[in-house]
Structures are given as structure tokens and as C-alpha cells.
């Protein structure tokens, strides 16, 4: 784990609430993330981990609470400023969300060629490089429907990395991948933190990945973060719920 040089808080979430009808998903979520930090969110399936990430990026509007990113009040800014901030934030969808009418190359180029200050030279070799990172250079001219679920996920990750975001929100980056690829993705996440000082918020059930990349782990239960600490701290936790994530037998 890299030591944190910059102590600025780049993401501040406080008192976040979200209910869908009578189904209260988030009741009181608070979380601050520092620049360059990697925070892992653990929680049972269906507890609202994806909802938290979607609130942060603005796909779901919370009922109350505040979200501050790069010092901006993200819930109350204008649409075009929001778009500008979003370019600095990467989001990896749980199911990949590839554009299925476009080739892999077009998928990766899509956001970049639509930037106002786009130049052709920005693109040269970049698509190939990102695909190399996720080990799928040969898929460049394939359609998403020709790829397996795990491959689609890795292409999704490559697409997220194209815009060189400062914060990346990963929704289960290694779920559905074989152990070798999972390990490669975990190392990719780690590399980005070390080389580019990227801040990451990762939802995962993959404890191997959590152990490798996390600076801090938070545990979501009944709409709140009920436990927080490093992997080593939580591993020794007395709490039965937290303990459940660390027991493998």
C-alpha cells in the first residue's frame, strides 16, 4: 500500500439518504476519501453499494444529504459543469455497459472524440495501450456481443481509463473473472494508485482484491457504514457481521 502524500479530501459524502418508494436503501451514509486513497466498500448483496456509487456520479439523485467532489457541491451544480467534472471521474459499471452497436475501438474512443478540445493526436496508440493494460489487445475490432462477460468487463475498465480520471468508482471490478485475471485487474488498480495517484472507491466481494488494493475498508449494513478500518484491523474484528466477510472456511 502506497503511503498518502496528499491529505486533501477529494470526495466528501455526508448524511446521504435514498429510498425507492417504501424501500429505504441508504439511511445515513457518511464517507470522506482523500486524494490517492483507495477505499473498499463491503456489504451484502442488495444493500445499496451500487446505489452509493450512482449517487456519487449523479445517476441517482439522493433524497437528502450532500456530496462534494473536488470541492464542488455536486448535487447543486449546473449540467455543463457537472459534465466537466464527470470527465475527471471514472465509473466502471457492474455489468460493463458497453455500447453494443459499436466495436471495441469505437467504445473506447467514444468519450474522447467528444471532448471540446479533442485533437486527433490525443488518440494515437491510446486505445491499443489501454486494451494492453487489460490484456485484450486482440479484441480491438470485435463487437461486444462477440466477447465473454469477463472480457466485456475488462473492456469496460479500459474504456473507463481512457479519459485518465482522477477518481475511479469501481462496481465489482473482478466479479465474474477468473482468479488470474482478477489478480491482474487488482494489480492494475494498484499500479494506477501508485503511478498516477488515482483515488479509488471500490465495491467488491473479492477479499483478495480488497486485501491487495485497499488503504481502508468500510462496511455497509442497513443503509449505514457500520465498520471502518484497514484490512488488517477489520480482519481481527470481533463483530460477527464484519467477520463474515473475512472467514473463508
Amino acid at each position, binding site marked *: 500500500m502506497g503511503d498518502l502524500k496528499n491529505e486533501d479530501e477529494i470526495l466528501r459524502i455526508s448524511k446521504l439518504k435514498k429510498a425507492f418508494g417504501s424501500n429505504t436503501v441508504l439511511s445515513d451514509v457518511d464517507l470522506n476519501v482523500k486524494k490517492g486513497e483507495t477505499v473498499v466498500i463491503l456489504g451484502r448483496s442488495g444493500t445499496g453499494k451500487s446505489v452509493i456509487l450512482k449517487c456519487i456520479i449523479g445517476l441517482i439523485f439522493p433524497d437528502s444529504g450532500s456530496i462534494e467532489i473536488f470541492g464542488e457541491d455536486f448535487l447543486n451544480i449546473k449540467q455543463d459543469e457537472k459534465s466537466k467534472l464527470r*470527465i475527471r471521474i471514472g465509473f466502471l459499471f457492474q455489468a460493463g455497459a458497453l455500447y453494443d452497436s459499436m466495436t471495441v475501438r469505437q467504445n473506447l474512443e467514444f*468519450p474522447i472524440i467528444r471532448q471540446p478540445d479533442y485533437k486527433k493526436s490525443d488518440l494515437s496508440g491510446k486505445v491499443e495501450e489501454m486494451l494492453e493494460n487489460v490484456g485484450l489487445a486482440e479484441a480491438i475490432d470485435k463487437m461486444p456481443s462477440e466477447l465473454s462477460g469477463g472480457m466485456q468487463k475488462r473492456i469496460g475498465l479500459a474504456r473507463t481509463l481512457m479519459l485518465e480520471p482522477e477518481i475511479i468508482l469501481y462496481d465489482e471490478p473482478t466479479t465474474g473473472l477468473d482468479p488470474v485475471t482478477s489478480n491482474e485487474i487488482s494489480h492494475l488498480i494498484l499500479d494506477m494508485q501508485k503511478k498516477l495517484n488515482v483515488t479509488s472507491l471500490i465495491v467488491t466481494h473479492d477479499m483478495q482484491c480488497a486485501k491487495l488494493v485497499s488503504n481502508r475498508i468500510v462496511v455497509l449494513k442497513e443503509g449505514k457504514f457500520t465498520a471502518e478500518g484497514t484490512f488488517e484491523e477489520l480482519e481481527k474484528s470481533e463483530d460477527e457481521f464484519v467477520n463474515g466477510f473475512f472467514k473463508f472456511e
Partner: protein
Amino acid sequence: MSSTEKVNKKESKSTLKFKLPASLEEFFAKIAGLASFAFKFFIELLKPPYEINETLKQFFMIGYKSFPLVAITGFIIGLTLTLQSIPTLDKFGAASLVPSMVALAVILEIGPVITALIFAGKIGSGIGAELGSMKVTEQIDAMEVSGTNPFKYLVVTRIFAATIMLPLLVILSDAIALFGGFLAINMFDYTSLKTFLVSAMANITFSDIIPAVTKTFLFGLSIGVVGCYEGYNASRGTESVGIAANTAVVISSLMVILIDMVMVQLSSIIF
């Protein structure tokens, strides 16, 4: 029990008076949604940057690919309409009016409306299903989080293409229908194409053509808007894709008929 029940009844009665039934409320919500969607289309249409490649692709997908279906229908309508009206008009000794009658019927009413209904079935459902499945598989969300504008890329291009292509298809379909009429007349006795066209166009004036063409733009616009709206606002789950496609066809077909009625009234006032 009776007293509390009475109170409850009274209360529910009084609230009912001021509350719209759920379906009516949904109906108005949908109208408002469609209107603001159309409004947003015009705003985004004018704002650069323009998605030129995608627009051209949609011209091809929406216009060119509907052409065979529209052409066949137009041909058959022109042919059958003529075949059926010849004996009747012949009884009144007015067989020479057949080309003119067919042209009036096709150009003013049947061509635009039938083509638009076919277009609504093919293109409205196609757009609804395509955008609906993009919504369900989070592709629209993915565009949004990458800082691009999915409305511009997906919606503006499709509505614009539908608005431009339908009038062209109607013109082609009208021409093919008239050709069908010409063939039908030739089954009875020989007429040259020139004679046929001259007598067909004899009773059509410029003030007939303008409203007939104007309404086809509105048909195309409304089919595009409804298809995109239904797809773009599809809810979660696979079945919502089917619902989006289906609702798109139903509503846009209905809109075609309604717009047709309003435009006929309007043009009879203006011209």
C-alpha cells in the same frame, strides 16, 4: 363501527373530488413528458457540436431501410384504389375523373397517413426497443457518466432523421401509388403516362400540397419523439424494452391520426 366508517367514507369522497384517477394523472404526466422532450429536442438540435456521422447513419437506418415496405404499400394502394373506383365512377359516366380522384385521395390523405402509420410501426417500435435496451443495460448511463450528452447522440439524431425522412418517403410513396393507379387504368384501356399525369394533377393546387407536406413533417417528428421518449424512459428490467416498443407504436399511431385531423381542420381554415 358505523360512525368511523361514515367519517372515512365522507373523507374519501371529498378527496376523490379533487384527485384525478391514477390513469388520468399518468396520461397528463405523459403529455407533459412528451412536450418537454420535444422542447429539449429543438434546443439541443441547434446547439453545437453536431453529431453529423450518427445523423447520416440514422438517415440511412430510418429512411432507406423503410423504403421497400413503403414502396410496396404505396404501389398496392394506388393499384387497388384505382381498380375499385373505375367501375363505380364508370356508372356515372365519370371514368375520366378516376386519375384525378386517385391523385387527390393519395396525395392529400391516404399516402401521408398510411405511410406514417407504417413508419410508426417500423421505426417507432425500432427506436423504442433500441433505446429501451440501451437504457436497461445502462449504456445511456455510461454515456452520461463519461461527460458526453446521450440525448444529443441518441435522441436528437433519431428524431431529426425521422422528421426529415418521413416526408421524403411520403413523396416517394405517393409517386409509386400514382404509378400503381396508372397501371390499373391500363388494365382497362390504354392511357399514356403523360395523359394520366395531366388529368391526375388537374385538380390539385399548390394550396393542397402545402398542408399535405407540412403534416408529414409533424408525423415524422411525433413518431421520432414518442419512440425516443418511450425508449429513453424505459424502466428497469427486460420486459420494459417490450413495453417501450409497444407503447411507442400505439401512441405514435394515435398521434398521426390526431395530427391529421387537426391539420385538415386548420388547413381548411387557412386556405
